[in-house]
């Protein structure tokens, strides 16, 4: 049945695309809404099955010969993500009904959104790595379409292009890793790979696999240094930002790391890369967030930083850390989704998202403000048990402290990690406060706003309310989701069921003091924000990932342009030279290494003087053409070569050839004569001596190569000619005495047919060239 769940959004996208325009009276979103709701309910109904430790799976053939099956399975981890995708999907669709006006191209929007939903479900449910990759790229494409939804804005197309380039770069790296994985583990199924774990760990390809796979995960999840696409993707409509860029797509990278951590977890490389990058992203993202002035910009950097924190915990790989990561994935989706929706409401009701122009909105929009406060406090990890973010942050601190007990590299770095965690969290606190206080409290300047601010309609508030209810309920009663949801998900990542009871109030332990430190320093920094904010301007732009992206993209464009301009000069002479030099060099090298230069004088015809004389005259004539500067002389000299050749044909017993050559040469000379009357005079070359020398070297080496090839191939005949067959059968089968003619029209008649076609085409072409002229010529 899993196939049907994944197919449902795609089917719906097809139907919406075809018929939504026919239903004029209601907002298209209402037609879409039932799909995620139904899927959410279905997935919820499966929860008891998972709690028993079973999994749901189904398989169908796709390309059996390549062992690519549409095999899907639902375990705890997939369940968590499926519920997020469908649950938040429903809320986002509901929100978008009130957010997007009916003047927008709603059909497009919902088709893209449904495509995204279906492919995201496909990513988290796939067992076959290649099916996973297919859906992975589907999410990139649908996300690209959604970011560029307002395609008439330059910023939107820029953001869409950037996210496409970065995520597809990662996606292709991931494909490389998946191919290597399937070669090493000799299976395409993720579960089988986990079973063959030791094969992969002992393989020489382990490091390339890990790095390529993590490139995919890091680009998708906006980790350092690939984070810069996410802030630019904020040009998408807000429901898209809330859905894709906080709750679902950016977590695909986390899903990937979690899914494969049963293979890689415990190795030092995995720990150092995943945790290292995660912690850097956490600190960098939260540090940069307070610099932003756009509400969605702050939220984008906040998402980056939170994803870094989850990534770091996945890298820790201990039971507590994984549970905390899973818990935080859930929590982040709830509070970040609601904060994005509120940012959208503020934008919708005031006409701006610039935090410098906002302030004191609390009196106008108390409900939104309350929701925002709860969401932001949860994000900051304010130590009150009604915020789920606090609980998961505590667990983050806890797991970072417990690393000392772990063996290997994790133990070595253990002392530094809690410090980094606290630093990252301090800035998280700062930007959370900056976000809500800057928007909702402080000085009112409503007269400067485009619209008079007022509370949003209830339909728009409904979705953030539901999410904030989750924030508070999970904050108060974490065990409500622990047993049915988080525990199976953790089990799917670590391999065994965790026995951690989520208590909503700890005793006074170290993590709690760490939280208090965060709040203390954070409050101090938040109040003095105005004083130290100029510090950001001191950071040179060179260090930003944006700058690097631009440098790389511009550099690629520039260097490919300069390379192309370097050799595509439009000069025929250069192209000929390149072709000939390559011909000479590659053939010589090949012949040298295969010992092709054999010269034997065993089987040669005796030298007879008439031929030598004719040959000598031809050679002289050919060389003389180079210096010809009279047209008539050039014709005669070319004629000498041609007639000389026909003489040689006579000497070498080829009567038909001699005849043809004679006639053809005559006609060619006649043609030259005809044309020359209309052509300009031959000019003596005005080239520099060095150019002439290069031409000379190329010409002589080409000629020498041809000579050597001729001699060498004549000296190494490996089998007899098939001439005897033609001689024997010319009369018997062909009924003719002239063997050459019998070959031409009988044995190999097809050649002759097409040679006639060539001649006919040439004649037609010449006729057309002479007959048809463009208008410019007609006037002359």
């Amino acid at each position: 049945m899993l196939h049907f769940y994944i197919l449902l959004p795609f089917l719906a996208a097809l139907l919406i695309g075809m018929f939504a325009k026919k239903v004029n009276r209601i907002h298209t979103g209402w037609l879409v809404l039932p799909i995620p709701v139904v899927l959410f309910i279905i997935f919820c109904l499966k929860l008891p099955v998972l709690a028993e430790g079973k999994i749901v799976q189904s398989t169908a053939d796709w390309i059996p010969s390549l062992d690519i099956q549409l095999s899907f399975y639902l375990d705890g981890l997939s369940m968590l993500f499926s519920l997020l995708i469908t649950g938040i999907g429903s809320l986002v669709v509901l929100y978008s009904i009130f957010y997007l006006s009916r003047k927008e191209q709603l059909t497009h929007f919902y088709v893209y959104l449904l495509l995204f939903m279906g492919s995201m479900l496909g990513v988290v449910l796939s067992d076959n790595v290649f099916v996973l990759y297919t859906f992975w790229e589907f999410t990139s494409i649908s996300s690209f379409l959604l970011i560029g939804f307002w395609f008439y804005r330059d910023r939107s197309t820029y953001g869409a292009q950037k996210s496409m380039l970065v995520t597809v770069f990662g996606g292709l790296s991931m494909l490389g890793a998946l191919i290597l994985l399937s070669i090493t583990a000799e299976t395409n199924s993720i579960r089988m790979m986990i079973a063959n774990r030791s094969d992969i760990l002992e393989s020489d390809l382990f490091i390339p696999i890990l790095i390529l796979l993590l490139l995919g995960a890091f680009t998708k999840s906006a980790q350092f240094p690939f984070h810069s696409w996410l802030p630019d993707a904020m040009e998408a409509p807000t429901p898209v930002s809330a859905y894709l860029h906080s709750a679902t797509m950016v977590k695909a990278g986390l899903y990937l790391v979690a899914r494969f951590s049963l293979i890689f977890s415990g190795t030092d490389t995995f720990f150092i890369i995943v945790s290292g990058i995660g912690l850097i992203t956490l600190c960098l993202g939260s540090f940069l967030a307070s610099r932003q002035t756009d509400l969605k910009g702050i939220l984008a950097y906040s998402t980056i930083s939170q994803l870094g924190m989850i990534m770091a915990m996945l890298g820790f790989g201990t039971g507590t850390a994984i549970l905390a990561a899973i818990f935080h994935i859930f929590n982040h989706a709830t509070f970040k989704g609601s904060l994005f929706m509120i940012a959208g409401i503020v934008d919708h009701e005031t006409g701006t998202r610039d935090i410098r122009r906002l302030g004191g909105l609390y009196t106008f929009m108390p409900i939104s403000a309350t929701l925002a406060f709860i969401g932001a406090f949860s994000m900051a990890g304010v130590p009150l048990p009604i915020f789920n973010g606090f609980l998961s942050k505590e667990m983050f601190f806890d797991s970072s402290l417990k690393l000392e007990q772990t063996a290997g590299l994790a133990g070595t770095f253990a002392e530094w990690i809690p410090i980094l965690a606290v630093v990252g969290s301090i800035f998280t606190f700062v930007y959370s406060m900056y976000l809500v206080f800057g928007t909702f409290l402080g000085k009112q300047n409503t007269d400067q706003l485009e619209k008079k601010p007022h509370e949003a309609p209830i339909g728009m508030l409904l979705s953030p309310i539901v999410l904030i209810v989750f924030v508070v309920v999970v904050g108060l009663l974490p065990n409500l989701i622990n047993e049915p949801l988080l525990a199976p998900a953790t089990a799917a990542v670590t391999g065994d069921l965790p026995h951690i009871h989520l208590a909503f109030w700890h005793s006074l332990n170290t993590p709690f003091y760490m939280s208090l430190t965060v709040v203390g320093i954070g409050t101090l920094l938040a109040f003095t924000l105005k004083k130290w904010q100029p510090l950001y301007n001191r950071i040179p732009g060179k260090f930003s990932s944006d700058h690097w992206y631009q440098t790389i993209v511009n550099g690629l464009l520039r260097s490919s342009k300069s390379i192309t301009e370097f050799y595509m000069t439009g000069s025929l002479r250069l192209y000929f030279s390149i072709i000939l030099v390559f011909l000479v060099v590659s053939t010589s090298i090949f012949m040298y290494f295969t010992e092709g230069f054999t010269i034997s004088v065993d089987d040669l015809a005796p030298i007879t003087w008439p031929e030598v004389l004719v040959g000598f005259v031809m050679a002289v004539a050919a060389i003389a053409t180079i210096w010809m500067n009279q047209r008539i002389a050039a014709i005669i000299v070319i004629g000498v070569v041609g007639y000389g050749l026909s003489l040689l044909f006579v000497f070498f017993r080829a009567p038909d050839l001699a005849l043809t050559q004679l006639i053809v040469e005559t006609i060619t000379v006649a043609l030259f004569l005809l044309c020359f009357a209309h052509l300009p005079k031959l000019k003596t070359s005005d080239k520099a001596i060095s150019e002439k020398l290069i031409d000379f070297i190329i010409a002589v080496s080409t000629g020498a190569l041809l000579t050597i090839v001729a001699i060498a191939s004549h000296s190494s005949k490996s089998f007899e000619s098939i001439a005897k067959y033609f001689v024997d059968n010319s009369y018997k089968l062909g009924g003719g005495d002239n063997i050459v003619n019998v070959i031409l029209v009988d044995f190999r008649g097809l050649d002759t047919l097409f040679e006639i076609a060539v001649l006919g085409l040439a004649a037609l072409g010449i006729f057309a060239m002479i007959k048809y002229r463009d208008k410019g010529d007609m006037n002359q």
Partner: protein
Amino acid sequence: MEILMSILAGTLFAAGVYLLLQKQLLKIVLGTALISHGAHLFILTMGKLNRGKPPILVKGIEDYTDPLPQALILTSIVISFGVTSFLLVLAYRTYQSNKTDMMDQLRGTDDE
């Protein structure tokens, strides 16, 4: 004999290639003509020279020159004739339309 003929074919090629690298369209056409002569001679030489009688069946003679290269060259002569005449007319038309037959003036513009 074959070695001498190989050298002749190489010489024809070298002269043809040198002409190909010139600036004037006319010289390039002449170059292609020389190169096709060289190629024909090359094919003929590869099929052994001066062995036996011309390939026309006469009673009592067993030994003939290899007829297959001759058939190939015959096809090739006709085709290169077609191509050369086409090129010539093309050169003629080029000169008519553009008033020049110097290759470096026939490059077209950058924004094409």
